[in-house]
C-alpha cells in the first residue's frame, strides 16, 4: 500500500468484520487507512459490502469484530449524531416536509446555531451548489439533479471533515452525472474534506477519486490510484471489473527475468508479465487492454511472440476504431485503434498477426 502505516490515517478500519445473520460474513477482515483530504471511492459489484462499510463508519451498523478509528479515536461506541460525519444518501433523503432552506438549516439548528449565522451559512451553501434561488421550494418541486445538489449542500453545510456518499449519482442521466461528478470533486478539493464515495460505476470511480478500493465478496481486492488500478490490476477480478479487458487462458511454461512464457490452450505461446502467478504449470489468465494490442510489427520488440488473428468485425466509432478478432479461440477479442491517418484499415475476413509489449500483458490468477 502506498500509505504509511503511522498515525496520519484520518479514518482507519482495523480488522473489521460484519455479519448480519451470524452465519455469513458480509465484510471480511477489512483493513483500510484513509488520510485526511483524500477522495476515496469504494467500487464493487452489487452486494459486495460497500454500503455496509459506509454504514459502519457512519454509525448505523455496528461492526461485528474489529475497530473503526476516526482521527485516532475509536468510534465504535460513539452514536451517529456525535460523529460529525456528513452523509449523502443514494435517494438523497431530503426531508419532504421541509423547504430546501429548512433542510439545510436543520443540521445547524440541532447544533444550536443562532438564526443569522444559520441563514448566512445556508445561503453560502446554496450558492456553492448554484441553487441560491431555490431555498423556498420543497424537495418534491426539484429535479433529480437539483435534489442531488441540495443533498450535497446539506451534507456540507455544517462543515464536517468527513463526508460519506452512497451512490449519490445513481439516479441521474449520463450528462448530469458527469457534470455532478465534476462538481463534487471540485467542491471536495476546494473545501479540503475527506470523502468516502461509494459507486459501482467504474468510470465514475476512475474519474473522481484519489484512490479506489475495489470490493468483491466483502474483501478489498485492490486499493490504488485510478491509473495504477487500470494499468496494473493485481488480479483477474480487478482486471475484469475495471475497464475493457481481453483475456486468454493458458498454462505457465516458464518464468524468467520477470517475463512469463504462457502456453495458451490452443498451443500458441506468448510472453506476459507475471503478477500473481509464481510456479511453472500453474493455470493463468492473461489480460491485455484493447488499446495496447498492436498489429504493426514495426512497433513491437524484436522477437516478440505473435499470434494469428482473424478480423470478425470492424466498428467505426469516430475517434477510434473497434475491431473484433478471433484470437486463440476467443472470438470476443477487442482491439481499439486511434483513427489516425497513418493507421492501417483492416477488412473483415482478413487474417493478421498481432502482438504486444510483455509488460502490457499481465498473467493473473485463473
Amino acid at each position, binding site marked *: 500500500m502506498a500509505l504509511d502505516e503511522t498515525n496520519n490515517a484520518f479514518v482507519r478500519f482495523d480488522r473489521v468484520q460484519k455479519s448480519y445473520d451470524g452465519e455469513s460474513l458480509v465484510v471480511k477482515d477489512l483493513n483500510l487507512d484513509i488520510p485526511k483530504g483524500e477522495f476515496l471511492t469504494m467500487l464493487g459489484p452489487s452486494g459486495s459490502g460497500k454500503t455496509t462499510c459506509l454504514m459502519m463508519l457512519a454509525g448505523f451498523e455496528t461492526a461485528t469484530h474489529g475497530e473503526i478509528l476516526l482521527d485516532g479515536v475509536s468510534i465504535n461506541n460513539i452514536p451517529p449524531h456525535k460523529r460529525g460525519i456528513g452523509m449523502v444518501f443514494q435517494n438523497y433523503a431530503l426531508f419532504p416536509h421541509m423547504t430546501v432552506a429548512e433542510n439545510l438549516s436543520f443540521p445547524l439548528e440541532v447544533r444550536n446555531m443562532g438564526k443569522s449565522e444559520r441563514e448566512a451559512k445556508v445561503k453560502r451553501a446554496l450558492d456553492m451548489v448554484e441553487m441560491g434561488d431555490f431555498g423556498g421550494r420543497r424537495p418534491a418541486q426539484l429535479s433529480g439533479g437539483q435534489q442531488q445538489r441540495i443533498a450535497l449542500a*446539506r451534507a456540507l453545510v455544517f462543515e464536517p471533515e468527513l463526508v460519506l456518499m452512497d451512490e449519490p449519482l445513481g439516479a441521474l442521466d449520463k450528462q448530469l452525472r458527469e457534470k455532478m461528478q465534476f462538481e463534487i470533486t471540485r467542491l471536495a478539493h476546494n473545501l479540503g474534506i475527506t470523502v468516502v464515495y461509494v459507486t459501482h460505476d467504474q468510470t465514475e470511480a476512475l474519474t473522481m477519486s484519489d484512490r479506489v478500493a475495489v470490493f468483491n465478496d466483502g474483501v478489498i481486492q485492490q486499493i490504488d490510484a485510478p491509473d495504477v488500478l487500470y494499468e496494473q490490476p493485481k488480479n483477474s477480478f480487478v482486471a475484469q471489473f475495471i475497464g475493457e479487458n481481453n483475456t486468454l487462458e493458458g498454462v505457465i511454461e516458464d518464468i524468467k527475468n520477470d517475463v512469463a512464457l504462457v502456453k495458451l490452450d490452443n498451443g500458441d505461446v506468448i510472453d506476459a508479465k507475471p503478477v500473481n502467478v509464481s510456479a511453472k504449470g500453474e493455470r493463468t489468465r492473461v489480460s491485455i487492454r484493447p488499446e495496447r494490442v498492436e498489429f504493426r510489427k514495426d512497433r513491437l520488440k524484436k522477437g516478440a511472440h505473435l499470434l494469428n488473428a482473424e478480423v470478425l468485425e470492424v466498428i467505426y466509432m469516430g475517434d477510434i476504431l473497434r475491431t473484433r478478432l478471433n484470437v486463440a479461440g476467443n472470438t470476443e477479442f477487442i482491439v481499439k485503434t486511434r483513427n489516425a491517418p497513418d493507421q492501417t484499415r483492416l477488412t473483415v475476413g482478413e487474417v493478421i498477426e498481432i502482438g504486444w509489449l510483455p509488460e502490457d500483458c499481465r498473467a493473473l490468477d485463473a
Partner: protein
Amino acid sequence: MSDTTTSLVAADGTPLKRKLAQSLMRSRARAFGLALPLLAFILVLFVYPIANFLTQAFYDARFATLMPGTTEVLKDWDAVSAPTEEMAAVLVADLVVSKKEKTIGKVATRVNRELSGTRSLFTKTARSAKKMEAPYMEALIKKDKDWGDIEVWQAMKTASRVYTPAYLAAAVDLKMLADGSIVRQDEDRRIHVILFWRTLEISFLVTLFCFMLGYPVAYMLSTLPARTSNLLLILVLLPFWTSLLVRTTAWIAMLQAQGVLNDLFVVFGLAADDDRFSLIYNKTGTLIAMTHILLPFMILPLYSVMKTIPPSYVRAAKSMGATNWTAFWRVYFPQSVPGIGAGALLVFILAIGYYITPALVGGQDGQMISNFIDFHMRKSLNWNLAAAMGLVMLVFVLFMFWIYDRIVGIDNMKLG
C-alpha cells in the same frame, strides 16, 4: 375552408376539439358504466334507505293520515280557546274509524309522546266511541274527564303537524309547545346534550389512547422484517376475528371486581381486597373495551404510512447531528402525520357511532349517544326521535370532517 382557419381539424375534417371531447366522452361513459352497478348498489342499499329513514327526523304523518278530520279542524284552532263541539264530533268520528282499522294504537302512541298518560285515554275512548252521541264534548268528558283538559287537545294539535321540528328539538334537549314555540326541556329530562358531550369525550379519549398505544406498535411493525410484521399484524387483527360475546366475556373476566386484573392489583398491594377498582360497567370499562376493539383502525393506517417512510430520513437527520429524539420529532413524526390523521379520524368516527360495546360494559355512565338511538329503535320504538338523533350525529360527523379538512387536509390522509 375559410371556417377552419381558427380551429384545427382531425383527419376526417371534424374540428379537433369536438373530436377530442367525443373520444373522452366515450371512455368516460365506459368507465361510468363499469361503476354503475356499485353506484346503484350504494344508492339502493345505503343512500336511499338512510335518507328515507332520516326524513323521519322531521316528517311524521301518522296522526295526520290516521285522523284526517281531526287534523283539519285542529289546524284552525288557536290552541288557547276552549275546544269546540265541532272538534269533539270530528274526533269521535275519527276514533270510530281508527278503532275499526286497528290504528288506534299508533294514534295513541303518537299523542302519548306529546303528553304522557294519554295512551289509555285514546284506546279506552276509541272502544266506546261507536256508541257516543251528540253532544260529543259532553260524551267524551263523561267517558273520561281528561277530555276537558286543554292540554290533551294541544298535544293532538302538536301531533298533527306533518313536518315538525319537535323530534330534532328533543334530540338536543329542547321541546316544542303547542303554539310552536321551543323551550328547554325540564331539567330532570335533559339527557341528550350530556350524552353528545360524553360521546365526544369518550371518542376523544379512545382516539387518544389508541394513538398512544398504537403508534409505538405501528412503528415497531414497520421496522420489522416483512415476515414477522405480517405475523404480528394478524395478532393486531385478532380482536376482529373473535366473536363479540367471547370478547365481552374475556373483558368481564379480566376487569370485574373479582377479575384477573383486580386480583393482580391486590396481590401487588395496589388495591385493598375489599376496595377493588371498578374497571367495568362504567366509563372506564367503555374506554378500555373500545380502545381495545378500535386499536387496529389506528394501527393499520399508521403502519401503512410508516412502512413508506424510508429509514434513511432518520439516518440522515442523525448524521447531521440530531439526537434520537430530535430526529424522531422533527423528521419522522411529521411524515407519519397523514397516518395519524387517517387513524384518528377513523377511530374517532367509529367511536362516535359505537353502541354494542358500551351497552355491554358501559354501565350507567359509560353509555353513548348511539346507545340511546338503539334504545329508541328497539325498545321505545320512537323511530322519529332515533332518526333525529342520528341526523344530529351525521351533521356532527360531517362537521368533524370539515374541521379535519381545514386543519390537516383530506387529501393529506392515507387510509392504507
